[in-house]
């Protein structure tokens, strides 16, 4: 493990951003076997055909409903049970294969969200924490799509605060069942679902014998009675997906339907949320690839001033941007999926969060640029771009807003780094001359233009020589990021939790570093095995790495500065003044005093 580990600690080779994954995990880029590839290609064909021929996205968006025959088609393709093991009637796909199908499914936002709410979160609880009996009872029907699942966590109040959960499950006197009462809001599939994963407060006895309210997870069937739902919400995008309130009134839930332990719902919820995100990378990439095809068609045929649109530099730039983003998203998504498919239960939640943040923001920008290529036409409802724009907006919000995930990425990393560095920082603070001197010498050497060599490139390196420049940039960024993180820990210690502006920068650099790693790793593999158009990949990787390198340097320069210099002070002050008056407080430019 190493990554940003600071100066002198490079006895281990470079791994990856937060030292959460090892170098050998990201280099070389994960591969699947030929059999698996064949298997997934067998799935891809029919699904692609189904989506291009039978899914009428425009109609789904207009009617705000997915027609039953489309749902039936999805069910017959087995898409409701992609990750459910074959023994329970699912397709038993690995994460990588799931990501591959996600690329196609994402061509319609409503369908993608309906499927994701069903299997990425709705039934995930049963899949990862359920007992064998629960799996045997529920998974077959869920896999076939006979039953649809929904995930009921959010309540009025706030989505990420466990304290806002007011639903309550009280144990009956015989101890055989719970009575569930409460309301949940914004439940995807809430109106369609037959099986709900519901989180509610239960009374649990603590280790020290005191009674305490804790959250438990339950499998609730609509058939248990007392389950009602409100009318579907009218939304900006993903209009075909069903989102509504779900109410539980004295719903009797047998004790066997508790997922995990009573009082262990918090962990279950966290695990479900963390595991559901990685697929957003491939989904976004799939969408952008489709958009590139559509807009390129337009740009190469439309003429202006006797020139094709595609001859204009500013239009070309947009296509490059889309290609780079799609390439990096894909690289990150399949790297993460590949790591998750490794034997054992590797925790890739931070990587998944990074994929989610990067790809959702990239998708939003790319869709917007694609629309821009068409100009006024893109704005019309006759073309699908405005729908893609509306649909992709949700990516920044659901499954944990990007702001929240940035905090997660940065804080998880900080916690990890802190554990390693606490001893050293304490030595410095105590005034240990030796350690302080070492730091001083290192900083002096850095200022003299130190060559960073983490062994990524060069003779024994894992990066292909064509990508040497990018590799070096990554190395340099990682090295200085390590120093920056150490500086932050020294400056803020555990109070870094409250420094959201700083944490956001830490998260941004981490995401960029992971993205660079993924792109370099993938491009190296492509060159080495001679994939078609691998020179194009090299170009994309070099463009991305150079841009990210400069962005990282800028952000890290900000991180090293104090609040007065990196504008944090002023930013906070403006916000404070605006929020105090709850309005824009400047006088109107036409205002006079005399």
């Amino acid at each position, binding site marked *: 493990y190493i990554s940003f580990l600071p100066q002198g600690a490079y006895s281990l080779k470079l791994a990856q951003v937060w030292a959460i994954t090892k170098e050998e995990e990201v280099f070389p880029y994960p591969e699947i076997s030929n059999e698996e590839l064949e298997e997934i290609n067998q799935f891809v064909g029919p699904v692609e055909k189904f989506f291009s021929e039978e899914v009428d996205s425009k109609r789904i968006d207009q009617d705000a409903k997915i027609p039953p025959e489309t749902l039936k088609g999805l069910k017959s393709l087995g898409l409701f049970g992609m990750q459910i093991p074959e023994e329970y009637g699912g397709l038993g796909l690995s994460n990588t294969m799931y990501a591959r199908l996600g690329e196609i499914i994402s061509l319609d936002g409503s369908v993608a969200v309906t499927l994701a709410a069903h299997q990425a979160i709705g039934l995930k609880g049963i899949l990862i924490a359920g007992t064998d009996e629960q799996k045997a009872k529920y998974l077959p029907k869920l896999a076939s799509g006979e039953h649809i699942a929904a995930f009921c966590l959010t309540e009025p109040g706030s989505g990420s605060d*466990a304290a806002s959960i007011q639903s309550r499950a009280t144990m009956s006197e015989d101890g055989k069942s719970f009575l569930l009462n409460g309301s949940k809001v914004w439940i995807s599939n809430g109106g369609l679902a037959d099986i709900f994963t519901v989180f509610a407060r239960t009374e649990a006895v603590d280790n020290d014998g005191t009674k305490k309210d804790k959250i438990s997870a339950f499998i609730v069937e609509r058939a248990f009675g007392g389950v009602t739902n409100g009318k579907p919400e009218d939304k900006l995008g993903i209009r075909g997906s069903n989102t509504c309130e779900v109410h539980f009134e004295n719903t009797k839930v047998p004790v066997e339907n508790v997922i995990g332990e009573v009082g262990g719902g918090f962990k279950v919820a966290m695990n479900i949320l963390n595991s559901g995100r990685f697929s957003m990378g491939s989904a976004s990439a799939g969408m952008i690839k489709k958009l590139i095809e559509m807009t390129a068609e337009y740009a190469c045929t439309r003429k202006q001033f006797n020139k094709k649109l595609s001859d204009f530099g500013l239009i070309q730039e947009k296509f490059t941007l889309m290609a780079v983003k799609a390439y990096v998203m894909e690289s990150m998504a399949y790297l993460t999926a590949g790591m998750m498919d490794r034997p054992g239960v590797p925790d890739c939640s931070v990587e998944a969060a990074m994929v989610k943040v990067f790809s959702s923001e990239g998708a939003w920008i790319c869709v917007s640029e694609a629309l821009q290529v068409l100009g006024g036409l893109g704005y019309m409802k006759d073309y699908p771009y405005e729908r893609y724009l509306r649909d992709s907006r949700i990516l920044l919000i659901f499954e944990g807003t990007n702001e929240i995930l940035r905090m997660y990425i940065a804080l998880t990393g*900080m916690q990890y780094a802190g554990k390693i560095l606490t001893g050293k920082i*304490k030595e410095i603070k105590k005034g240990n001359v030796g350690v302080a001197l070492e730091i001083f010498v290192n900083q002096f050497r850095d200022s003299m233009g130190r060559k960073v060599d983490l062994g990524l490139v060069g003779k024994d390196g894992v990066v292909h020589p064509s990508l040497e420049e990018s590799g070096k940039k990554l190395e340099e960024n990682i090295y200085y990021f390590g120093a920056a993180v150490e500086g932050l820990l020294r400056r803020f210690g*555990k109070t870094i939790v409250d420094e959201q502006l700083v944490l956001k920068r830490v998260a941004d650099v981490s995401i960029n570093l992971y993205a660079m790693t993924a792109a370099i790793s993938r491009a190296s593999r492509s060159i080495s095995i001679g994939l078609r158009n691998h020179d194009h990949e090299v170009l994309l990787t070099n463009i991305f790495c150079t841009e990210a390198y400069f962005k990282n340097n800028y952000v890290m320069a900000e991180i090293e500065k104090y609040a007065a210099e990196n504008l944090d002070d002023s930013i906070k002050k403006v916000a404070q003044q605006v929020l105090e008056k709850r309005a824009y407080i400047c006088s109107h430019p036409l205002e006079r005093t*005399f």
Partner: protein
Amino acid sequence: MNCVRKLLLARELSAGRGILRQAAPGRDLPWLQGSSCAQRFWPVSVRSIRSSAALSRSELIPSARGDKEKDRGSRDGSLVPFDELFERAHEGDRTKAAFSRAVELFCQRDIRRRGHVEFIKAALRKMPEFGVERELDVYNKILDVFPKEVFVPRNFIQRMFNHYPRQQECGIHVLEQMENYGIMPDKQTKFLLLQIFGKKSHPVRKYQRLMYWFPRFKHVNPYPIPAALPRDPVDLARISLQRIAADLSAKITVYQMSLTDVSDAGKEITQPHIVGIQSPDQQELLAHHNPARPVFVEGPFPLWLKKTCVYYYVLRGEPLPPEEKEETIDSERNFFYPLHLDLDLDRGPWDDEEFYVDEVEEGPIFAMCMAGAGDQATLAKWILGLQQTNPILSQTPVVFHLKPGPQELQAASDSESGEEEIPQSWHAKQEL
């Protein structure tokens, strides 16, 4: 003719007073308008040898006025003709129209505007009486009294020295009074001053200084008070409470409107108004208050809104004991990211931006109110009203710590004791 006689009389008087004044200057000061005027007075009288007839005369009249002040009561007719002008003008009401009439009267009386400096000073003095001290056009009207173009310097020597100092001083006086009442001059003022005194004269410079500072200070108060305060005590209480609370989510409740009624028994019942304010944060604080500990009603505390003083009462708790203050962060609170890090490192001194402040601990304030009467029965009604939204109050003992406020002094002597305490658990329902 009367006027001339008076002037002669004044000259006689002042001739005698010259010595007197030097002998006991302090005695003369009270009737002088401000110290700047007093300082100016002596040099002018000395200079009067070389000054014009108009100047010496104009010096005489204030001194005559001094005599008048001294002898007020003994003499019937006023020595100062200009005060009289105003007295005559206001036969009806003391209004803006009457004031303008007086000014017009003066302007019509003499084409040369003889005695305009004295008239202007008198007019400035009379302005508050007529309630026109904040009227810009009245100031412009007064400036219009000055003869135009006479005092504009024509050559460099005049420009170098203080040309027509008394007139310039008088012009400055007008501007000073405007300044004191916060009246911003306008284009008309500037036009008049330029016409009367010319560019770079002292009044014009004064005008420029006013125009430099006034706009800059116009919005310097971040918490402005409306120009006219509402008459209705309930509305007044509303804006006062919002001003203290400084929380936009705070909700104002009128618990009781003021009312005077005659009951069946023929007794007159007066019901004072009660207006309270409470923010959601305060409600939450109160909801988490331990009912075993009493809460206190305290007051009255004064709040000044310009020249009006209002009084308010607070409902507060005692500072929390340290063992209850510690907030434990629930590790199972946030589904997405850790709310605290398990690290043994603290914040460094360079990023610690908090000043050392010697903090005095105060208890939480749960609500505030303003009432038409400060007696305990009235405030009890407030507490009763608060119970509607804060059910915990009905289980919490409420202790009244009331100081005798000015309102109580006016009202009655029913609560002489400075501090009333009701130690037993107090339920408003029993009380009423």
